[in-house]
Every structure is written in C-alpha cells, then in structure tokens.
C-alpha cells in the first residue's frame, strides 16, 4: 500500500455510544439520520425511515431465528465499527493500487471503495454501448431518476430481515447498472469492492441492476480487503431481469479472515429470461450470502451455483431460495464445500414451487467434503412444492475424500498430497465449469489450485486485481 494517509477519525461516526449492538445503531440513526439522508439520494431516503422502524423491531438476527441458526453473527456484530456517514473521500486510488491480472478478461472495470462508488478514470474503460448506464445510485438519482423509482427497493423492502432492514436504514449509496432493450454487453462488467480503512470499519451499500428486454450482461463482483483492520460489509443487490434477457452474476470473495461479509442478492426474472449466479468463496472470515431468485415469468432458466473453500476458523453460510412462481421454468442449483481445520459451512436450499407453477423442473445438489473431523457442515434442503406436475430433486452429501480414488492415484506414483489436491480440485471442478467467461474460468482454476495447495493464505490483490 503506497497510500498510507490516515482517514480522519473525527469524520467517522462511531456507533459505540451506549455500547455496541442494536441499541448503539438505533441511537446513531436517531441522532444522525439527517446527515445520513443529506449524503444520500431521495429514492433511498424514501424507504429509510420505514427500514429503520423495521430494524428497531427486528434487531440483528440471532441463532434463535430459523434462517440464521447455522451462523452466529453476535460476535462480529458487536465489534465497534466506524461508519462513513458524512461520505468523506477515502484516500486510496484503486487505479494506482490494483492492476487487473486476469489475462484476456477485458472487462469494464469499476471500483467501490468501502461503500462509495469510485469515479471512473481508467482509460481502459472504453465507451459503453449506447444507453448503458453504470455509476453510483446517488449519481443516477440526479441524472436518470425515472430509472430508479420503478425498481429501487422493490425486492428488498418486503423482506422481514434485520440485516436487510439495517441496510435500508444506513446504506447511502450503491452501484447502479442499466442495460437497455436488446443491448448486449460485449465484455463483462467487473466491480471490485475494496475495503480500506485504518479503524474497524463497516460498509453499507445497496446496489441496483436492471436489464431490459433481450439485454445481455455479465457482472463479476470481487470482494477485496486492503488493510488489516476488521471489516464488515452489508450489501444488498437487487437485480431485475426482463423478458428474454440474460444475466450472469459472478461473485468472488477473497478477503482476509477479519472480514465479515453479509450480502443479499435478490434477483427477479421475467418471462423467458436466463440467469446464472455463481458465488465463490475462496478465502474469508465470516460470510453469509443470502440469495433469492424469484421466477416471476414463464420459461425462465436459472442456474445457481457456488463453491466454498474454508479452513482455520472461517465460516461460510449460503442461504439460498429459488421461488418458482410461474409454470415451465427450469432451475438447477449446485453448491460444493471443501472444509478443513475448524471451518464451519452451512447451506440452505429453499425451493418453493407455487401451486400454478406446473411443469417446473428444479434440481438441487449440495456436496461437501470435510478434510478433518473438526470441520463442520450443516446442510438443509428445504422443498415446498404446491404444484402437482413437477420434476424436483435434491441431494446433499457430507463426506471425506474418496480413499479408493486416492489409493489408485498413489498406485500410479502420485504422492498422497498431490492425490488429495487433484481430488479436491476435481470435486470443485463442475462449479468452475459453470463460469462462462473463459479467462475468468482459467484464472479461478488457477486460484482454486493455489488455495488448495495452501499458497493463497490471504487475498492477493482482489485475486483478480493485484
């Protein structure tokens, strides 16, 4: 890190007054809601007080709640984090510090530093196709307010969830992307979330992505931490995929083990749309990914997959829901975990098929390998099927590496450690195969191999960006 400027502590509002926990955030909101609003956009402020009331009611989720029983967030939520309510610019230039090294990925590259959109200055970002808008929610609220009003908060505001309510109360900005009708983005959009602070820090942001009819876009989100302080991010992303549109969402987390990543991804699909979401956790601290995909049109194709490699005391919880509201949709879900040491993994696969969603085909698979007896995995398929003409299946397994396969390799002269590595790599391979950006697929293969070899102990740049 070349840039060692301290962030002026007086500009960061600490919630520590009155102890750390819900109460301190409630106090913070009450005393600072005007500043919060002043530095945000009206479309966000419109929902803010209602979100706050919801947060006051719900508080932070605890293990007493069914949806949170596998991941205890109490400890990470009691840390005294700073929040950048007055939107003081963070002294870091991501374009100087991070150089993209996915060979041949040629993406449109954007940065979010903590929870603020970083102005685009990279000349590599050639002109976007006509009508495509990428920027901060705050900025777009001024330039294209009509794009926000129909969508912002439509998926998130109905959720009864303390973390989403907290996000609604405190998020002041976010990443925005709009792809107009029948526009196909020739390159992936790459969004790098950089966490940069000199004190324990919380980033809260709310992203919005809109694909109009027949549009096509790929988004790659990389979570990346720079400093050795404790970070918590609470990000909500809403995605609207209109008729015949195709959206691919890749999320790659490679953060340090003092990072808590609480992310909510809500996707709404219209008729004949296609969505692929692939959520990969290579290195982290505590992660909870809540993902919900609503199939609100007929003939949708949905692929949701993910992979976790965790060791030491890392925790990863993927809480997923696929909601089939309309007939003739196909969904496939595949999650794989490799857990070592005392790592904890959790997977929930909710699959809801509404009464009218006939001819649904929905398949869910969760497979897990525990490398040590001390690692823990909890998996819960949760199918609710109200239609009678459907094909649905689910499977969950927890096991160790295949000893016969390992011996077979050793009998060919391959060392035990190399055999284990090949098996672990093979285990995660089908999730990697589900990456449809070839350069990214190659890069992730390489990173997974490095991670499994134990050579990727901490984020290397954003993985993608060094």
């Amino acid at each position, binding site marked *: 890190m070349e840039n060692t400027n301290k962030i002026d502590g007086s500009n960061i509002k600490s919630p520590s007054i009155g102890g750390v926990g819900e109460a301190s955030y409630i106090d913070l909101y009450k005393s600072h809601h005007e500043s919060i609003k002043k530095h945000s956009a009206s479309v966000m402020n419109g929902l803010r007080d209602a979100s706050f009331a919801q947060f006051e009611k719900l508080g932070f989720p605890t293990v007493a709640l069914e949806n949170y029983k596998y991941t205890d967030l109490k400890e990470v939520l009691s840390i005294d984090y700073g929040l950048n309510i007055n939107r003081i610019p963070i002294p870091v230039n991501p374009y100087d510090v991070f150089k993209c090294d996915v060979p041949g990925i040629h993406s449109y590259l954007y940065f979010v530093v903590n929870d603020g959109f970083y102005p685009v200055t990279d000349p590599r970002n050639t002109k976007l196709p006509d009508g495509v808008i990428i920027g901060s929610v705050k900025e777009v609220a001024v330039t294209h307010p009509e794009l926000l009003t129909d969508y912002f908060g439509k998926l998130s505001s109905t959720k009864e969830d303390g973390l989403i309510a907290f996000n609604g109360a405190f998020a002041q900005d976010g990443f925005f992307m709009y792809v107009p009708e029948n526009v196909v983005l020739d390159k992936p959009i790459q969004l790098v979330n950089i966490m940069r602070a000199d004190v324990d820090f919380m980033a809260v942001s709310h992203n919005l992505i809109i694909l109009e009819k027949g549009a096509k876009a790929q988004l790659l989100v990389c979570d990346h931490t720079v400093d050795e302080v404790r970070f918590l991010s609470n990000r909500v992303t809403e995605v609207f995929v209109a008729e015949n549109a195709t959206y691919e969402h890749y999320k790659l987390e490679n953060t340090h083990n003092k990072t808590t990543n609480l992310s909510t991804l809500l996707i709404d699909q219209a008729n004949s749309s296609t969505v692929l979401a692939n959520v990969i956790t290579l290195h982290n601290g505590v992660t909870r990914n809540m993902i919900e995909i609503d199939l609100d049109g007929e003939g949708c194709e949905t692929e949701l997959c993910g992979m976790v490699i965790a060791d030491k005391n890392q925790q990863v919880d993927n809480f997923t829901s696929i909601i089939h509201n309309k007939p003739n949709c196909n969904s496939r879900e595949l999650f794989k975990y490799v857990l070592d040491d005392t790592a904890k993994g959790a997977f929930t696969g909710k699959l809801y098929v509404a009464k009218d969603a006939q001819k649904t085909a929905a398949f869910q698979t969760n497979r897990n390998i525990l490398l040590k007896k001390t690692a823990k995995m909890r998996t819960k398929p949760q199918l609710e099927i109200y239609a009678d003409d459907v094909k649905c299946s689910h499977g969950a397994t927890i096991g160790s590496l295949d000893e016969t396969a390992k011996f077979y390799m050793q*009998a060919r*002269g391959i060392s*035990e450690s190399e055999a284990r590595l090949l098996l672990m790599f093979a285990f995660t391979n089908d999730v990697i195969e589900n990456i449809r950006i070839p350069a990214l697929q190659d890069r992730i293969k390489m990173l997974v191999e490095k991670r499994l070899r134990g050579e990727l102990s901490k984020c290397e740049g954003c993985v993608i960006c060094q």
Partner: protein
Amino acid sequence: MLEIKNLRASINGKEILKGLSLSVNAGEVHAIMGPNGAGKSTLSSVLTGNPAFTVTEGDVTFNGKNLLELTPENRSREGIFLSFQYPVEIPGVSMVNFMRTAVNEHRKYKNLEPMSASDFLKLQREKKELVEMDSKLANRSVNEGFSGGEKKRNEIFQMAMLDPKLSILDETDSGLDIDALRIVANGVNKLKTKDNASIVITHYQRLLDYIVPDFVHVLYDGRIVKSGGKELAYELEERGYDWIKKEVEGE
C-alpha cells in the same frame, strides 16, 4: 527382483494371506491362479501398499529394497505397477492431467526434469496405439463412463506410460470380450522385455493362451500350494480346484 517370504496379511482382523512365499526374476511371467477367496487380490493389494490391509508377518524385498516400508507412491516409482481388477473412476480428473502428474512424479523420483508438453503428448500418442485406445478417452475424466473393456485397456495404457519393472495384472481378463482380451494381452506382450517381469492373476486359463507364463502357481487359503509350468494351468482348467483342495487338506 521380487522376493516374498512367509507373508501374512489381514483385513479387519481376518487373516487372508497365511505364509505366502514367491520369488520372481527379471524376464519371467508368473501366473497366480486359485479359487475365489484364496487371497489372490489381497496379494496384489499388499504388494502395492493398500492401507486397508495389515501385514502381520513376513518380508518382501523388491530389487533389494524392503518393499513393505515404502509408501504406495514410492512402490510405483520403484517400478511396481498394478493393473486393477476394478479400475477406479475419478470424476473431474482428466486422463491427461492424471497421467502427466504420474509420469512427472516418476521422473522427479529419478531426479529428472518434468517432461515437456510436446514430449508428453508424443509419448501418450505412441502408447495409446499399443492398446488401440480411442484418443477421445484421454480427454475424459479418469475411467469415468468407460466401458469394462476401455477401463482395462486404460490400465495397460498406464502401464505402458510408466514402464514398470514388475507389473501385476489382477484379473485383467475379467469383463473382457475376446477381442478386447486379445488387444490387452497383445499390449502386455509388446511391453515384455528381458529386464521386466509380470505376475498375472487370473481365474481362468483363457488369458494364459495369450500371455504365456513361465510359471503357474496355485494360491489356496492364503498360501501357494502348488507350482509348475504352464501345463499346470491346463490341468486346472480341466480338473478344477477341488483336487488341489483335497491334496492340501489331506496333508
């Protein structure tokens, strides 16, 4: 080359090998025959270091080294090859990657540089022809979705790639039709030199029409109870194993 003395081995506390002795020299082909449950596959497992089996007594030396002290991978690198009775499917590991890793681990053991990609491909092409293996198989996952015959051919292909000193063919004929059997046996015969040796484990004499043994041993109840030339195989084919059992029990 291989010297087995009074070998005893068990699995889950049950003794399977009960004092087996066998000596194999370079250039020789030994056939081991015997009824079901005699310990034929246990012998191949123990020689290759399968951790499921425990050696309780006896010595095995391979080219002067104590084989039982070596890890399975080092036994392979020293030149022991087992053609598995049931080759293992490894989804997600490509044949190419698997074989390249194996070849290079062998080279590393001999202090040789890893093989270049082009040399490896050349070697692979050459050896594939030996067993008439479909080149498409090389791009698939190890044994995944291979037919019984393809799996066995793949074993011999791997044997050709690794060029072992001692190859153990465990029921290589099982599940093979006559054409596949000929191809597999042909591959084995082409790999034979005066410096290497083979142990052919089989139920039936059929395979021995193609791979002609110098010695035939009968394994029964964990021991070699009879040894002879290739004519012993014909006698077994004709008379079955009952007379051997009677001979042993009559002792």
